[in-house]
């Protein structure tokens, strides 16, 4: 630090000695404390062991003003949006007079507008002499906000580049170590068939989304775009039976079905790869084999008992087909990389022979090489006669792999675009509630 050697024993030590603050990917906020209490947590200004709020709140508010935040120190943390919580973390770093602030995927849960605001703040902090370490999967952001970019691959330092003199393709090449077409593109011909696999009509969940109707054809990849909070995940959860519907009709291959819970969805042939793998996808303390087998144990029965050998055979089949790595059947899924965890959950649904697979943010937190593999697998799925819905906040992704795109804004469907109408500008316009006159 400033040429001196420092050793940090723990995060607190780093804050005190070196003034390094880390803003985490998933924001750590105590929901039932005020903003000010959160920011000063552990270092509250106090008099004789009693917290001095007369000093605490003005100090914090001064920082919040500097960051142009529209919330106050006295507000309860649970009233903040994801973007505001991010700002709270940055305010915390400033409270500790951090000279180095490290941001880990700060925009992961931010809307476009919040991201813009965050970048303005980051630029301002840079002007005032604060060093920012910005960890991101999103290459556009790296070029937008960073002066230099360091690439790590498989835990090793690869190189550091000046972003001004580097192209996106260069960067990707260093990241994957070999030439990979990282941007989402279709490698095979589109294979959309006439037959409608899934049709929903007037789907409504009060206060969350309303009147959602669309058709999903056999062999189609249907993209769902929109800003964070547009209600896409909620629509998918409702179709899958994880959340209750207020009204609406779901038809599978023309036949009306009532999906009241996830077991009904599974029986009807709908699978969902959830957004949060860790909390919604795989099971902790459980091996790859068992994680893959979970949704169709009835297929592995011998005399009514679950047959380990059959589970293992099933796992080996998909481990081979999906190139799961490490491949050991006894490996705990929780210790795998994000991309491989995603493949385990995909293997779970492929084992069940469902006809419709919903991918919710399938490449979130997944490295570039694994992304390309996931796109390839999606294509294989639709070529085998199944249908895919992809919910994605990454515009190049939905544009690259979808046959059609449905755009949502604040719980409503605002557009249904055919391939020739795909463009980032059009989609963004609809996603922000525009009427199509981009």
């Amino acid at each position, binding site marked *: 630090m400033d040429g001196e050697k420092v050793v940090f024993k723990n995060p607190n030590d780093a804050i005190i000695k070196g003034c390094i603050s880390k803003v985490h990917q998933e924001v750590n906020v105590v929901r039932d404390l005020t903003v000010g209490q959160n920011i000063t947590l552990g270092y509250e200004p106090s008099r004789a062991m009693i917290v001095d709020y007369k000093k605490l709140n003005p100090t914090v508010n001064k920082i919040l003003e500097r960051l142009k935040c529209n919330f106050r120190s006295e507000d309860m943390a649970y009233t903040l949006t994801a973007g505001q919580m991010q700002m709270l973390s940055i305010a915390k770093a400033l409270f500790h007079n951090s000279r180095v602030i490290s941001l880990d995927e700060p925009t992961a849960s931010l809307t476009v507008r919040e991201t813009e605001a965050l970048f303005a703040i980051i630029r301002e902090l840079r002007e005032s002499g604060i060093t920012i370490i910005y960890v991101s999967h999103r290459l556009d952001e790296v070029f937008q906000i960073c002066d230099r970019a360091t690439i790590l691959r498989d835990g090793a330092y690869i190189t550091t580049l000046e972003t001004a003199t580097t192209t996106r393709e260069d960067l990707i090449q260093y990241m994957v170590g070999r030439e990979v077409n990282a941007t989402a593109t279709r490698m095979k011909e589109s294979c959309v068939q006439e037959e409608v696999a899934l049709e929903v009509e007037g789907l409504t969940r009060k206060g969350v989304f309303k009147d959602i109707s669309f058709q999903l054809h056999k062999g189609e990849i249907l993209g769902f775009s929109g800003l964070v909070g547009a209600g896409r995940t909620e629509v998918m959860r409702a179709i899958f039976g994880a959340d209750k519907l207020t009204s609406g009709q779901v038809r599978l291959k023309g036949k009306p079905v009532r999906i009241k*819970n*996830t077991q009904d969805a599974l029986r009807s042939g709908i699978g969902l790869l959830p957004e949060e793998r860790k*909390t919604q*996808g795989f099971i902790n303390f459980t091996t790859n084999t068992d994680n893959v087998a979970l949704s169709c*144990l009835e297929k592995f029965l011998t005399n009514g008992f679950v047959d380990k050998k059959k589970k293992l055979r099933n796992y080996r089949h998909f481990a081979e087909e999906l190139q799961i790595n490490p491949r*050991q059947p*006894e490996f705990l899924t929780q210790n795998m990389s994000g991309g491989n965890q995603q493949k385990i959950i995909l293997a779970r649904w492929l084992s069940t022979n469902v006809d419709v697979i919903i991918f919710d943010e399938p490449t979130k937190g997944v490295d570039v090489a694994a992304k390309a593999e996931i796109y390839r697998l999606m294509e294989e799925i639709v070529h085998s006669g199944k249908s895919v819905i992809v919910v994605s906040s990454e515009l190049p992704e939905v544009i690259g792999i979808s046959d059609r795109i449905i755009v949502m804004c604040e719980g409503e469907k605002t557009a249904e675009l055919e391939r020739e109408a795909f463009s980032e500008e059009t989609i963004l316009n609809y996603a922000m509630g525009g009427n199509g006159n981009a």
Partner: protein
Amino acid sequence: MPKVSLRNMGRELAVFIALIIMIIVFALIDSAYVTTGNLVDIVKQSTINGILAIGITFAIISGGIDLSIGCTFAIVIVAVGELTVRGVPPLVAIVMGAALGFMMGTINGFLVTKMHLQPFIATLGTMSVYRGLAYVVTGGWPVLNIPDNYRRILNAKVIGDIPGSIFVLIGIAVLAHILLKTTRFGNYLFAVGGNEESAKLSGVNVSRTKIIAYGFCGFCAAFAGMIMLANLGTGEPASGQGYELDAIAAAAIGGTRMAGGKGSVLGTVLGALLLAALKIGLIITGVSTFWQYIVTGIIIIIAAYFEIIQTKISALIS
């Protein structure tokens, strides 16, 4: 691959080794400890706690807890006691007792799943209700003069000195092991405890799985109670107080993860054996009862800490 399977078996093996070491240490202090009679005593002593602990292991793996088992135990004791005294054939009474226990367990499961209560609070409530019911049924008096034909079924010496109750423990342990390891319910139970939301989003019926787990917990409590009834010959409505804590201790020593998703029948049974071996060892070597509490507590803490160290070591290996 062997490394992985060793890690899976690690906990049971460690408890087993601890048990052997404990037996050796007590044997060195007093050779009377390792007589056949005494070793049978250890198993006998662990029967009731072992069966209760197997049941609560299911509730704990599901991500919950069942504090009411000591009271389910008491209700079944007085209910089956009354039935046998009134001349109901013993085998019929046993089946009815088991069904009663299962039903009381499913009530807990219902409160936890359909009413979304925290397992701790839900079973704290039923714990009090069940205890009260046991008193109400008997007016606070014990059920006396349990017929011998009932007592003989669960308490008879089957082979040499070995009482039938040990075979009930073995039977329930085997049944529980098969349920956990080879049935769909068992697979779902680990999934629900390991990550409830993931299990739900995989199409697992979370509520049904939990209700069955609590039902089985009550079923085990019923058998433990019926063995107690056979042993004592009287049905005491105040019996079983604090038994849930011993059962939790056995499960914890056996490596059941208190937050759910992890645990085994073998580990739990070994945990119950270890507690019984410790208790009898301390009695034989003349240590006062007061010290027994202290030592038992320390063993539980060591067992929990061992879990943490084990996790760290396996993280280092991989």
